[in-house]
């Protein structure tokens, strides 16, 4: 791995570079910037909901804009670009190639992200990350809505280009001595998620275009007043974005596959079952999209089909959990910061999955749908699993990227506070949902249980906020002044044996 930050270079050399580690660094910095921007919006939402009535946000429209941009930012500008950062650093090394297959395309895919981010943030749309018609057509204020549509359009193209690049790099550029059955699981995770992107994203790209022409009044695809059907948008949207859940989660699982065997000082329990579960998940993931739509008035048969499709994805996810636990079984585990994040992430992944089974069971979904239960449920995935996996991996790659070591004690404090905060926020939100509090509301009636649980949630969110401030300070300080890392064995696991990809690639 190249030590970019150890060899000072003018910033434009990194910005205009097409080398995979430079593009990876750009992805890393921009995704972390958006993590902190999007996270601050979450703190604003939580501060507002601490008590009924208006707290810090003066009107409902501003609140609606804030949660819309919060979701859009963290999904499209943090999670996906962060995975691309890791993929850029690791995939070429893991398949033993000098760079990504198409370096210029790689840089272009990255440089589409900042303008898209600017469009989304300057527009500050209010129609939720789901942009449901007919609200998004007849009611959502422009130009914010249109800027959001263009921003998402650009991000869609960017992720398709990135996916193409990963697929070609892994399948066509891997070292001839290496069969596809020897490619590490992290690279397999990028192969699976990239294939999902290629199939899933074009559907939403089409829906966005139709949404835009509907807004312009030129068409009426989703506008009932012009003979269109809003439900068809919901199908197109979820056909993309249910599989997209797996696009988000699979690379994070891949990162755990990199960390857990290392820090358990054991080979992975079953490499083949990891691959099998990735491939299975990326196929079965396409059979469950309309479980988001039980309450739209679907027929009993439709609901049954999508419930079965959803439950069918559970064994594949469960296989990953089994694989991790079996790997850690009887191992000499070293609980360094990256390992703590991965293990915490698995625990929360399991909790999130268990809650998901409840949602998929048709009668129970009518209790949880569009309440805070759902907010808690998917945040256990995006925060508890994906962000935990990603942040753990960031600690793991930190010595390789910067050549310096982060502060281990601060890393552990960061994890501990984040874990406590995540449990406080998102477990409580599940219960709050069972008490009936809807999502996406600026204010709520003074029901004592709602107030108490909102306060617990807000306190939890502030704990996460504090932990993230510690994280930021640790990263910035250690990148410049941390102690020099032993890049052969930065975590003191005992010898080069545990870094096979480093050992095979002395020139990197």
């Amino acid at each position: 791995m190249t030590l970019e930050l150890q060899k000072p270079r003018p910033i434009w050399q990194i910005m205009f570079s097409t080398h995979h580690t430079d593009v990876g660094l750009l992805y890393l910095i921009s995704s972390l910037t958006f993590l902190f921007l999007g996270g601050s919006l979450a703190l604003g939402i939580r501060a507002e909901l601490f008590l009924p009535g208006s707290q810090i946000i003066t009107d409902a429209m501003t609140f609606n804009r804030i949660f819309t941009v919060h979701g859009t930012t963290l999904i499209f500008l943090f999670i996906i670009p962060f995975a691309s950062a890791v993929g850029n650093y690791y995939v070429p090394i893991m398949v033993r190639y000098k760079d990504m297959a198409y370096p210029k395309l790689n840089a272009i895919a990255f440089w589409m992200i900042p303008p898209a981010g600017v469009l989304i943030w300057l527009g500050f749309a209010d129609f939720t990350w789901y942009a449901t018609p007919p609200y998004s057509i007849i009611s959502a204020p422009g130009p914010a809505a249109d800027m959001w549509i263009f921003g998402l359009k650009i991000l869609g193209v960017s992720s398709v280009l990135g996916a193409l690049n990963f697929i070609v790099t892994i399948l066509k550029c891997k070292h001839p001595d290496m069969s596809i059955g020897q490619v590490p699981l992290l690279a397999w995770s990028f192969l699976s998620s990239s294939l999902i992107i290629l199939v899933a994203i074009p559907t939403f790209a089409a829906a966005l275009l139709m949404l835009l022409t509907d807004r312009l009044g030129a068409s009426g695809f989703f506008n009932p007043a012009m003979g269109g059907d809003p439900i068809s948008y919901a199908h197109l949207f979820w056909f993309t974005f249910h599989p997209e859940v797996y696009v988000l989660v699979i690379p994070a699982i891949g990162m755990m596959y990199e960390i857990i065997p290392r820090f358990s000082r054991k080979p992975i329990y079953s490499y083949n079952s990891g691959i099998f579960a990735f491939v299975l998940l990326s196929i079965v993931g396409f059979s469950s999209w309309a479980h988001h739509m039980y309450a739209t008035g679907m027929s009993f048969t439709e609901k049954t089909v999508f419930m079965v499709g959803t439950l069918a994805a559970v064994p594949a996810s469960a296989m990953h959990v089994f694989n991790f636990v079996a790997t850690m079984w009887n191992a000499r585990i070293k609980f360094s910061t990256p390992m703590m994040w991965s293990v915490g992430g698995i625990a929360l992944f399991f909790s999130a999955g268990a809650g998901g089974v409840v949602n998929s069971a048709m009668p129970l979904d009518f209790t949880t749908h569009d309440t805070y239960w759902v907010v808690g449920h998917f945040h256990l995935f995006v925060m508890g699993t994906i962000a935990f996996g990603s942040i753990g991996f960031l600690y793991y790659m930190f010595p390789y990227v910067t050549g310096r070591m982060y502060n281990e004690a601060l890393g552990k404090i960061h994890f501990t506070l984040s874990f406590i905060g995540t449990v406080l926020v998102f477990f409580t939100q599940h219960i709050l949902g069972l008490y009936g509090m809807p999502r996406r509301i600026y204010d709520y009636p003074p029901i004592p249980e709602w107030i108490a649980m909102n306060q617990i949630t807000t306190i939890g969110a502030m704990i996460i906020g504090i932990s993230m401030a510690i994280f930021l300070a640790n990263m910035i300080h250690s990148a410049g002044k941390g102690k020099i890392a032993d890049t052969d064995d930065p975590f003191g696991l005992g010898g080069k044996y545990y870094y096979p990809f480093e050992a095979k690639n002395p020139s990197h």
Partner: protein
Amino acid sequence: MGGHSNWPEWIYVAVVIALMAWVGAEAWEAERLVEHIPEDAETIIVTGQQWFWTFEHEDGTKEIGELHVEVGKAYKFEIVSTDVNHSFNIHDYVVLLDAIPGRVNTVWFAPDAPGVHDIQCREYCGLIHYNMRGTLYVEEPSH
């Protein structure tokens, strides 16, 4: 990889599949019962619009923001919307269904005790979504 036997994983996967099959079967059976609308159910037309609920009883009486029903009767809600998507929700009775312009969605319930319950909108519908609320009054039959 490696030569070790994988039977613990197969047993585990079989257990997970069995659990999911059980959840699916129970859910299927429960939903089938819940969706069966009694034939004597009275129809109430529920209209969602930004940002209030209107109720029209079979006898033509209309109510805005309030709904009065009687204990022991079954009611069938026909849910419509005049503008954007809403979601009609009486959480205490697990009544939830979207109000979508251009469609009529049907759900039923039978209140079993007198009381006052919240009605709310559970699908984002814009500025005052948070306060698109109503009240359900379940009353003793008047005879």
